[in-house]
């Protein structure tokens, strides 16, 4: 972590970073469509753009976008209520091949308009036609969509996105109470082989050989580390609107939705705690079709291309053996009130009361003996800020604890061989007093 944050600071990203927290990442960003009388309609277009990479490169991409808005990578996240009849009108603006959409996990998808392709109806930028896909979002969960036209090329070029189908119960991923959550994050994982994108940019489509792929960029929500830390809709990333920085308070249940968006598998490795994965491909992992009795606890999600995963991640500080807020004598005066419900945790702060006012069981080193990272607040205690030497720290506004969430295929932590970067973000455990999302504090 030390060298990592050093690099970030050298890159002078600190100013930008400071400008984006707190309240940087509201719930999952996406579009909910326009009510059309029978359900909702999404009007999407496909077009070409270049996206910047943190190593200074620029990569030609093809992407879906909301009609009238720029294309984006990944495509707009479609957020739909279970049972809604969905209409997607797709118009190919300027991609020099026909394009289309497939919706794995959705049943009874019908396609009209455009011309018939290998798998479904396709839209041509020359003909200017529009394809209409309709289906009913029968099952809640996390899904994906992608092009069904020459998918080996077009998904690589960026034509993919996520779909979230919300269950009938608010803040519950599936129709099972064990999938209740307080906060949710989506991670769409993908990669780019710049050679293919160069060939497309230079008009060499017939020379592209999709039997070979040598990716050098690995994306989280369409961004490369450290761009992953920046807020949603950052103005300098006009085609990459989705950030990946995750924040939570102790005791919250965080729903993690993962989509394998590219053509490689990625081991998404969650530091800090295990995740209880209870759904795959938008289907509850269940022996009886009702409850998630086949859920699996793991610390790495093997995210396969095209597949989706849902799980609950929690962090409480339970049984760390010391008071995460520090002792009262240490300066942060606080109580631990476990009245209702009696669950071993403070009713407000979710502090683990058995460890209340317990000293950290080591002698903390003096500051002159310590190497710091940009994410160190100066204190090991949640919500505590302390002095640091000039030039140290500065990326931790609330005294939070940082856990790196990343691909554990370590080469994927680079941008074209430059470390750090790639498929990497942070989960910040923020003190209960910190406002994370103004709408959902």
């Amino acid at each position, binding site marked *: 972590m030390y060298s990592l944050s050093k690099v970030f600071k050298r890159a002078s990203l600190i100013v930008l970073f400071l400008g984006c927290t707190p309240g940087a990442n509201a719930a999952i960003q996406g579009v909910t469509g326009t009510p059309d009388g029978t359900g909702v309609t999404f009007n999407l277009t496909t077009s070409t753009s270049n996206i910047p990479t943190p190593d200074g490169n620029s990569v030609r991409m093809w992407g879906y976008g909301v009609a009238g808005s720029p294309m984006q990578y990944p495509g707009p996240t479609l957020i739909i209520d279970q049972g809604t009849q969905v209409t997607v009108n797709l118009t190919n603006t300027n991609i*020099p*091949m*026909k394009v289309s959409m*497939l*919706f*794995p*996990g*959705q*049943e*009874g*998808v019908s396609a009209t308009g455009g011309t018939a392709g*290998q*798998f*479904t109806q396709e839209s*041509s*930028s*020359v*003909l200017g036609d529009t394809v209409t896909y309709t289906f009913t979002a029968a099952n809640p969960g996390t899904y994906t969509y992608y092009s*069904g036209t*020459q*998918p*080996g*090329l077009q*998904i*690589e070029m960026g034509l993919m996105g996520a779909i979230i189908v919300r269950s009938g119960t608010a803040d519950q991923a599936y129709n099972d109470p064990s999938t209740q959550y307080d906060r949710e994050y989506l991670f769409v994982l993908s990669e780019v082989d710049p050679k293919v994108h160069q060939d497309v940019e230079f008009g060499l*489509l*017939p020379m*592209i*050989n*999709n*039997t*070979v792929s040598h990716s050098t960029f690995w994306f989280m929500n369409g961004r490369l580390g450290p761009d992953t830390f920046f807020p949603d809709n950052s103005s300098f990333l006009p085609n990459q609107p989705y950030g990946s920085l995750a924040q939570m308070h102790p005791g919250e249940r965080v729903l993690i939705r993962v989509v*394998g968006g590219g*053509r*490689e*598998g990625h081991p998404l490795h969650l530091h800090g705690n295990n995740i209880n994965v209870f759904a*795959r*491909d*938008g*289907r509850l*992992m269940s*022996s009886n079709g009702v409850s998630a009795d*086949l859920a699996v606890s793991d610390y790495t999600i093997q995210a*396969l*291309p*095209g*597949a989706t995963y849902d799980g609950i991640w929690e962090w409480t500080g339970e049984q760390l053996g010391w008071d995460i807020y520090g002792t009262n004598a240490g300066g942060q005066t606080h109580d631990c009130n476990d009245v209702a419900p009696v669950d071993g945790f403070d009713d407000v702060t979710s502090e683990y009361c058995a460890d209340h006012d317990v000293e950290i069981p080591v002698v903390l080193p003096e500051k002159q003996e310590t190497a710091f990272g940009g994410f160190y607040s100066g204190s090991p205690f949640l919500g505590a800020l302390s002095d640091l030497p000039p030039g140290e720290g500065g990326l931790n506004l609330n005294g939070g604890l940082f856990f790196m969430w990343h691909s554990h295929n370590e080469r994927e932590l680079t941008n074209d061989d430059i470390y750090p970067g790639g498929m990497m973000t942070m989960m910040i455990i923020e003190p209960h007093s910190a406002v994370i999302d103004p709408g959902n504090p």
Partner: protein
Amino acid sequence: MKIKSTKTALASAIALSLVSATFSSSLFAQDYYLCAKQGTKTMSDTTVIPMWGFALATDAVDQAAGCAAAITVPGPALTVPVGDNVLNIHVKNIDLPEAVSVIIPGQHAPMTPVMSAPDAQGRQRVISFTHVASMTDASASTYTWSSMQPGTYAYQSGSHPAVQVQMGLYGAVTKDAAAGQAYASASTAYDSEMTVIYSEIDPVLHTQVANIGTPNEPKYGSTGMTSTIDYNPQYFLVNGDDSSTGTPIAGAPLQTSLIRFINMGLETHIPTLHGDDMAIIAEDGHAYTNARNQYSVMVAAGQTRDVLFTPPAGPGDYPLFDRMLNLTNKTPPFVTAGANGVLTSPGSLVTVLQVGTNADTDNVLDHKDNCLLEVNPAQMDTDKDGFGNACDADLNNDGIVNTQDIPLFITAFQANSQLVDLNEDGVANTGDIPELIRMFFTEPGPTGISN
């Protein structure tokens, strides 16, 4: 794509038993006679690839004579009938320069590994997992499994497998727990089954292996590739076909198809279904306690996964393709066609599962069949009115075949127009006249195509 109804599978299995079964104690044993031979495979781009493979002999005599049949890759599908515990595979190596063998990962068999000669330090390497069949052997080698478990398995060479499996020495071997039921649990019952074997071909590797014995050409293992670490597949195959444009029939609506996925390539493949999900019931021939419902299933190299696919009511197409996106071969990766510089690919690890009814059993499902009650697999419809030629002698398109159509028939007949090729043999000839008479005073059709 190997598709057969349970009934046929059973019938052929019984037939094979009658032909080749021998008695082993009180139990039936299933015997297969295979030849390991050289051969070739012609790819969709006309490239001819040297292959090694298994050919199925009709009996021991045919095998001793070198097998009349050519090799197939994948090798012959071997089935062990319900109730049989013993499988014997007799292998004669006809002309492969390396000794070969047969193993079935996951099935119990006593193994007798073959070691290389000691090197200068006295060290030996395993060169075959079990006893081998060499081209210098006078008789076939026999491989026996005496407690065959139900499930989906692959047989493959157990000798120098990095090369020999890639060269094509593999195939499917299956056994059901009961008729129409894959495993012990009744929840694994099925109405029809298909086997989907994925593999890849690196043409350089095949050429260099075939060069063994040819002077001055790069040879695998010496003057060419030293190992499969440089493996770079350029063709991706479903059941040995690299242009998988086929559209197999996965069965009727609401009926259950068992799809046996086997990956005999060296890379991972992730068949992903579009339009429905699948119940994954088994892995490597072992049933899960609880089926897993997913739309995608990872099949690692050498692995088998079994899924049940039960489509909803109504006809439909269900694309099934490798989400690792091995969907094009190297040459030509693209074919340019049509306006807009539209590019299409020849297709690779792509299968479209067709679901529907098939009243005339011509393998064109009713919802796509332009003659619902005529066997017309070619689906000729020269006047493009939605009624196939086989059920359309209504040449003036007035809705009835009558005397007004006769002059049109004669004119078209004299012009040798396919319009009156009513029996779909490719030409307008006297064979079409009885068809005209048969359809006289009837309406065209019926057709399954709405327009």
